[in-house]
């Protein structure tokens, strides 16, 4: 739109005000502004004050180091804290490279061709729109794509692909030592103990099973080796699943990994936009100098643009990680509201994160749980404060002029 030419002043009541009157209006407006603007500070103080007032009573070392529990007096935030860290690490490891790469492409690889240029403009619009999508919608997306994987790999209860897990039947000797019968898959009915079966001891040694009658006893002088592999005929095999720390299964299910992927979708546009801004802030003259020396685009990006933009990109990355740390809605959708009281043992395990745990406590609608939620918030805010402090520190340290 073209700027309109300056219109001659219309004679409205506005023009008839005396200078004194207009100064009075100005002063009045200034006070009004100060009042309104200070409201935000007041609100912030009241918000933090009310949380601190509620939360400090339940805050203790025990709260920090114990896991969640249904009992108000026992509950702590440790497992949620570990879950949050794990989720943020996994999510950042995926989102940062993809986000920065996208930003570099949009900013540095602008095509010369006109039609491609239009497409390029669309990327920009697309990413701005992605940033405006409510996070709960990403949760719904994550539910289909990551948690269930379109049902391509079987149901959640019976995943088709598994790695890092071993199934076996375990049986107890009369001396309560466990013996394991490794199997590929659990059958409908557990096998019965038979003489000569090959089983493993807890230390992984292969032994041959020896079965004795229900009321029989081994002679007192039986060697230890025989004792170790003897079971009674009425002893039963029970299913036993051992998952290693690198256990992976598809579909991902309600696992740390599916949560991390979902969260990645949420913060990807944020990372792209902030990286774009810091890349754009690198002065054009630097790039042109490098191009003038005959660099290819990638050489310019690698040796000139990225080194100059990296502090800004880091700051943006940390801030977006702190956003990820506070995000609860998409995780609530992908993980359901299981009340998890244990640490996650592997990336496929149930987990909870701090904001979700706080939500669950607050959702009990009881004063004791409100206090717990407030204590949880204090911990969460302290963690976020550390994140932001690091970001500010990086920004301060690397503020040198490139102009």
């Amino acid at each position, binding site marked *: 739109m073209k700027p309109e030419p300056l219109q001659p002043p219309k004679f409205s009541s506005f023009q008839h005000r005396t200078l004194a009157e207009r100064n009075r209006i100005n002063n009045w407006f*200034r006070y009004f502004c100060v009042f*309104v603007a200070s409201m935000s500070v007041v609100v*912030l103080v009241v918000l933090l004050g009310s949380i601190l007032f509620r939360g400090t009573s339940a805050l203790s070392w025990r709260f920090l180091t114990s896991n969640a529990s249904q009992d108000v007096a026992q509950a702590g935030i440790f497992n949620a804290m570990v879950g949050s860290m794990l989720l943020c690490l996994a999510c950042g490891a995926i989102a940062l490279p993809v986000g920065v790469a*996208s930003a570099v492409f949009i900013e540095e690889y602008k095509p010369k061709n006109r039609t491609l240029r239009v497409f390029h403009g669309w990327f920009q619009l697309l990413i701005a729109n992605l940033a405006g999508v409510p996070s709960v919608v990403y949760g*719904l*997306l994550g*539910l289909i794509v990551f948690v269930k994987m379109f049902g391509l790999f079987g149901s959640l209860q019976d995943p088709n692909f598994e790695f890092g897990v071993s199934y076996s039947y375990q049986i107890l000797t009369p001396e309560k030592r466990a013996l394991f019968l490794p199997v590929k898959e659990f059958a409908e009915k557990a096998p019965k103990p038979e003489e000569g079966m090959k089983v493993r001891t807890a230390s992984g040694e292969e032994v041959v099973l020896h079965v004795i009658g229900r009321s029989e006893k081994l002679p007192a002088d039986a060697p230890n080796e025989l004792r170790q592999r003897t079971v009674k005929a009425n002893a039963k095999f029970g299913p036993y699943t051992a998952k290693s720390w690198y256990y992976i299964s598809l579909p991902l299910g309600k696992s740390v990994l599916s949560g991390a992927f979902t969260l990645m979708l949420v913060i990807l546009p944020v990372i792209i936009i902030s990286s774009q801004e810091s890349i754009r802030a690198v002065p054009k003259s630097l790039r042109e100098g490098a191009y003038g020396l005959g660099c290819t685009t990638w050489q310019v990006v690698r040796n000139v643009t990225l080194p100059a933009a990296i502090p800004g990109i880091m700051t943006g990355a940390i801030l977006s990680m702190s956003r990820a740390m506070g995000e*609860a809605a998409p995780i609530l959708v992908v993980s359901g509201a299981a009340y998890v009281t244990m640490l996650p043992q592997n990336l496929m395990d149930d987990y909870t994160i701090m904001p979700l745990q706080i939500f669950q406590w*607050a959702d009990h609608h009881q004063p004791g749980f409100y206090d717990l939620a407030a204590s949880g918030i204090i911990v969460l805010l302290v963690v976020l404060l550390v994140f932001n402090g690091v970001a500010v520190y990086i920004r301060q340290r690397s503020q040198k002029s490139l102009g």
Partner: protein
Amino acid sequence: MSDQVGASILQTVRRKSTAAAFRAEIFVRTMLVGSVSFSVFVTLAIVILLVRETVAFFQFEEVSLGDFLFGLKWSPMMGSQKHFGIWPLVSGTFVVSVVAMVIAIPLGLVTAIYLSEYASPKVRAILKPALEILAGIPTVVYGLFALTFITPILRSMHEGFNPQNLMAAGIAVGILCLPTVSSLCEDALRAVPRSLREAAYGLGGTKFDVSVRVVLPAALSGIISAFLLAIARAVGETMIVALAAGNVARLTVDPRNSAYTMTGYITQMAKGDVSNFGIEYSSMFAVGAALFAITLLLTFIGQLIRKYFRESYE
């Protein structure tokens, strides 16, 4: 001495043949295109999957499109008497957003004018961080604040408020949107060239005349797009309404009532143990699709306004 400098430069810049540099160029370009296509892919996936699940929702006997778009009753759990009219959910979202905007828009705009035109650097140094902190606080914190602070105050002032009500949720969402409005509006106000202000001062305008009669109209497109983005944010806000707005589907415009919003319904379904293929599960996606459509429309219009109605003074 100069030899040393030369050697260090040779060390840092790896020498490569031009052909190798071009090969690297092509490789990197492919990788970067891959990353960008990921975002495109995500967008397409959102649209396609939401549409697919919504279509699946309308395949159920109990649901019809007319009922969904115009029905005034939402009762997905009522056994044989299921009704799926989206208006009760929309009304909840509407009330919360209106309350939020009544708070966020005037406060945010005035704060932005103050920050951009009046405030001294000292005041800015206090105000800007306060707003940034407000913007960085996780939404679940506002949810607890609405429940344990705003609601008791509202109830002590007037008995008609439910323990969970749209008003408290709306106020909290408004506080949440306040920094968004003020920082986007401030950006728009600051983008107005200095020459306009100086001309207005030269004509004898007071600061009020300049900021309200000259700068504000000049920045109007940016300000309106900021409002639209804030509305989109309020519509999509989830944790606050999940905690403070209540969980009953009710067609109401009375902010004292408790009612579902669209996002509140989605969390309630995700939280509960709905079967993975039932109609309740599918309804979650239909509501999600409606929510996505509304917010996308708002963001998109906001961007169009900012792009095409911007007054350029260069």
